[in-house]
């Protein structure tokens, strides 16, 4: 019997998810034993045309990481959807837009303007500003590059997704758990399930001691020396733990850093940022509007903090252009 076929792809991503796959260490050999790897651009030499030639639904498992922000990302997403039986949105970017999704705070025009015109590290020849053109026609034919989209999207806003594995990146033990489950041939969970994560919040895994929260002031991590045993939020550091799914083992709080929210919203929560507003509002210890405003002023960059990984997948998806 031939081995099941495995494909891995990266769209708009940093490559960290690929490293996380390799971080299962020698077990990667078990993966190679169990699967026939048919497509993995970052590690092996395959061409898009190799995939185009495959029969539909011939790939048994596709781990797709990265957000969708240009026409190439989307094209390969459509292609892999057609060729795959089970397609997994792997990592925060594919799951909910991730860090690339923060581009939704601004516009394509503004990004291009900075990158190709105003960036201090730019050397403009003859003062000419050149913006990338999707199509360039020259004497001997046309030259095409992918077109960047105005709005970054999560994978399931573009194609149908079977499963999700959250995390930036997903922790290797969880990746291995999912792969092992699939290799063992056990029945798969229902479509749309979030794999390799828990059903509670990051706080449930966190070892720090929690008391009743009553906050008069917020701090950024560098502004105070956080006590190592106490809940970071109790100490006034904005920690995304209450609005984040468990599964990572609360790695960041264990290293004295607040949770960044990479495992996405917990079950039954659609919008991580809204949930964080709700959570923090409940623990602010003030009743006078002026005092409340003063306390809120201390929260630096609410959008970037509360929606660090989930902006593209949030209820409003992007900031409106003015």
């Amino acid at each position, binding site marked *: 019997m031939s081995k099941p076929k495995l494909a891995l792809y990266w769209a708009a991503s940093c490559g960290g998810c690929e490293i996380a796959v390799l971080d299962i260490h020698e077990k990667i050999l078990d993966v190679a034993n169990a699967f026939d790897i048919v497509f993995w651009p970052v590690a092996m030499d395959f061409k898009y045309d190799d995939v185009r030639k495959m029969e539909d639904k011939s790939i048994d498992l596709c781990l797709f990481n990265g957000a969708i922000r240009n026409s190439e990302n989307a094209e390969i997403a459509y292609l892999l959807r*057609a060729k795959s039986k089970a397609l997994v949105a792997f990592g925060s970017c594919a799951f909910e837009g991730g860090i690339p999704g923060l581009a939704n705070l601004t516009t394509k025009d503004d990004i291009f303007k900075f990158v190709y015109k105003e960036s201090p590290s730019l050397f403009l020849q003859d003062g000419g500003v050149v913006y990338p053109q999707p199509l360039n026609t020259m004497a001997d034919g046309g030259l095409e590059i992918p077109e960047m989209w105005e709005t970054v999207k999560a994978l399931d806003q573009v194609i149908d997704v079977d499963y999700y594995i959250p995390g930036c990146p997903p922790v290797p033990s969880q990746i291995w758990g999912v792969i092992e489950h699939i290799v063992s041939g056990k029945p798969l969970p229902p479509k749309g399930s979030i794999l390799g994560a828990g059903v509670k919040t990051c706080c449930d895994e966190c070892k720090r001691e929690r008391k009743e929260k009553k906050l008069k002031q917020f701090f950024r991590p560098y502004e105070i020396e956080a006590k190592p045993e106490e809940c970071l939020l109790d100490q006034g550091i904005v920690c995304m733990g209450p609005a984040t799914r468990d599964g990572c083992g609360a790695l960041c709080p264990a290293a004295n850093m607040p949770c960044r929210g990479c495992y996405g919203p917990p079950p039954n929560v659609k919008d991580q940022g*809204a949930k964080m507003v*709700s959570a923090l509002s409940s623990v602010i210890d003030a*009743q006078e509007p002026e005092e409340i405003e003063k306390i809120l002023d201390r929260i630096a960059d*609410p*959008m970037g903090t509360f929606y660090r990984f989930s902006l593209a997948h949030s*209820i409003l998806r992007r*900031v409106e252009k003015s």
Partner: protein
Amino acid sequence: MAFEPKIIGFLCNWCSYTGADLAGVSRIKSAPNVRVIRTMCSGRVDPSFVLKAFQIGADGVVVMGCHLGDCHYQEGNYKTIRRIPFLKRLVKDFGIDPRRLRLEWVSASEGDRFAHLVNEFTEEIRSLGPLTLSVHTELRKKTPEAVAV
């Protein structure tokens, strides 16, 4: 056709909803633009309810609860008094005019106040005009940016 604001009103069961009811039985005329959703407490209004209202086409959202000190659950509206100003900041960061989100206190006996606030808010939203968000068009599309394979 002239613009008619669509407004979602989250009214607490114990004070504001009863206040709205009083406005009705007292035959006080007020703008018909507010679609009322009854919640048990203004503190029950999760920020995602408000964002969802904007997502599916509300031009304005008003949250109404008991006056401070009158909450049926003792301190539910003290959560609201922190939550809505916080949410206004977020709404503003999303590029939506924060005036489109309002928090008001209406007691069960203030039918006239309810009618007055509804009229005032409707006029304010009317002057702000319809709210258009890119997510509105996004949700109407059947297939997002189709690409040939």
